[in-house]
């Protein structure tokens, strides 16, 4: 069953109540970046120049690049939190002007509100978009999805870093977004927690049919999570390589040979781009 947000009304809630499908696939967003350039200040050079690419529905795309290549800025623009100086971000055929619960961003820090319980934090998006009547059914669903149902009434501060990031994920998913934008959301976690979250987030996004855009400077994270990796050049930021990751789901483990091969291939491209930066005169 495919449910878009537009007809998500009473019938949807009935469906949510039925036990057999607590998680319904949602059609993911389609993103087009059109002739996008960005300059912070007039005196500086552009951080992003002439970006033109598309992200298809349900695709997981990693933006891979060194610090300062503007990848995070680009993600903020997709979220509607920043506006490009030139060009535009088009989602589902419409230019992005402002944040929307239909595409939600996850940040490096989970940024849960420490005066609230886990369930209250997860309910924030619904509360802000005036869907408080959905909180009772939707919040247990999303907490279940991230394996935190037992923690619903605990204070957010009682959870570990990885668990807090899971709550942030539940909070992002509660409003049934069409796209998740991840700004290095696992970088503050220990290696073990990071691996399991990377796998879980990819799995959840695929199960829900979400489009996902992920900003990272970690090659193995890109290989593990993404269907497609855009390797970004810096100064100014632009797409240097568009790489499709063809790994099967069970090969997306750091140990497998196919994974190692793919990682080595991507690492080579990434290193070449990075070296290219160093020799390009700034200006």
């Amino acid at each position, binding site marked *: 069953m495919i449910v878009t947000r537009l007809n998500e009304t009473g019938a949807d809630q009935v469906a949510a109540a039925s036990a057999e499908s607590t998680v319904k696939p949602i059609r993911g967003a389609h993103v087009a970046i059109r002739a996008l350039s960005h300059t912070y200040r007039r005196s500086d050079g552009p951080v992003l120049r002439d970006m033109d690419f598309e992200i298809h529905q349900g695709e997981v795309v990693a933006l891979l690049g060194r610090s300062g290549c503007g990848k995070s800025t680009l993600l903020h623009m997709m979220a509607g939190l920043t506006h490009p100086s030139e060009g535009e971000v088009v989602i589902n055929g419409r230019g992005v002007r402002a944040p929307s619960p239909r595409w939600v*961003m996850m940040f490096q820090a989970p940024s849960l*509100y420490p*005066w609230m319980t886990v369930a209250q934090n997860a309910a924030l*998006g619904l509360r*802000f978009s005036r869907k408080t009547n959905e909180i009772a059914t939707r919040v247990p669903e999303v907490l279940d999805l991230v394996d935190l149902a037992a923690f619903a009434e605990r204070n957010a501060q009682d959870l570990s870093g990885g668990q807090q990031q899971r709550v942030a994920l539940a*909070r992002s998913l509660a409003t049934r977004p069409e796209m998740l934008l991840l700004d290095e959301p696992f970088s503050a976690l220990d290696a073990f927690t990071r691996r399991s979250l990377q796998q879980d987030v990819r799995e959840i996004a695929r199960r829900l049919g979400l489009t996902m855009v992920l900003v990272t400077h970690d090659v193995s994270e890109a290989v593990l999570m993404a269907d497609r990796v855009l390797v970004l050049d810096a100064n100014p930021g632009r797409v240097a390589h568009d790489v499709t990751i063809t790994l099967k789901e069970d090969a997306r483990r750091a140990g497998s040979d196919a994974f190692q091969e793919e990682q080595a291939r991507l690492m080579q491209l990434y290193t070449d781009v990075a070296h290219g930066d160093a020799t390009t005169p700034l200006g």
Partner: protein
Amino acid sequence: MTAIPDTPAGAFRLPRLGRFRGLFNAVLGIALLMGLWWLGGRAVANDPDMFAFSDFAPGPTLAALWDILSTGEVLSMSGPSLYRVGSGLAIAAALGVPLGIAVGRTTWLREITNVPFQFLRMISPLSWMPIAVMVYDTWDGAIVFLIAVAAVWPILFSTASGVRRIDPSWLKVARNLGANPFHMLFVVILPAIAVDVLTGIRLALGVAWVVLVPAEYLGVTSGLGYAINDARDILDYSRLAAVVVVIGVIGFLLDWLCMLAINKFNWVRETAH
């Protein structure tokens, strides 16, 4: 209980009392204060120049205190005072909290208001008294104004500093999830700064309670300050001292209520994991 000593060997230590230690020490502190009071009373009574003031001693004072408590006079004395402090604090909070949020959120507003606010803050509230008396028709109005002037600064500054310490990512997350300005204020900002606001109110209450008594020395014919002045005029020193005790006890209780409210709204964990 661990056997690790928490004070250096040889240092003076109170006996171990387990969970009653806090209560025991509180009672000990009160007993020490009463002892000093009693000694002072003895010294005054034995001094030929001062023996007229011997009614300030604990015995006569407690008798007079029992008198104003049992007749219910304590209510008619403190009622008007509590009303004035309550009104003054309410006005101070109604001005101080919104102004504090605005000053905390807006850099240019903070820069513009910094010097004027610091200047006004350092003026003793009582120095406004002649002006207040001229401006307000009633003494009550003047007293409420003085209390509000005294109380607004701690509330304003504490609120502003709370707002400045709000984690910017809390605001970013709220914006990202579609919060409108109303949500921002009531779901994010106010809960985040609740403890700062209440701490400001607690400080303000302390100042207001101090300013109240001298403000009530003038004009009005009710309240605790008036009761002290009245007792002095009729040379009833035991009654005067009893009112002083009442002022101290009420002030202590009000502060304790503020502490309870702060603890209730405090979301900061003592220990990080």
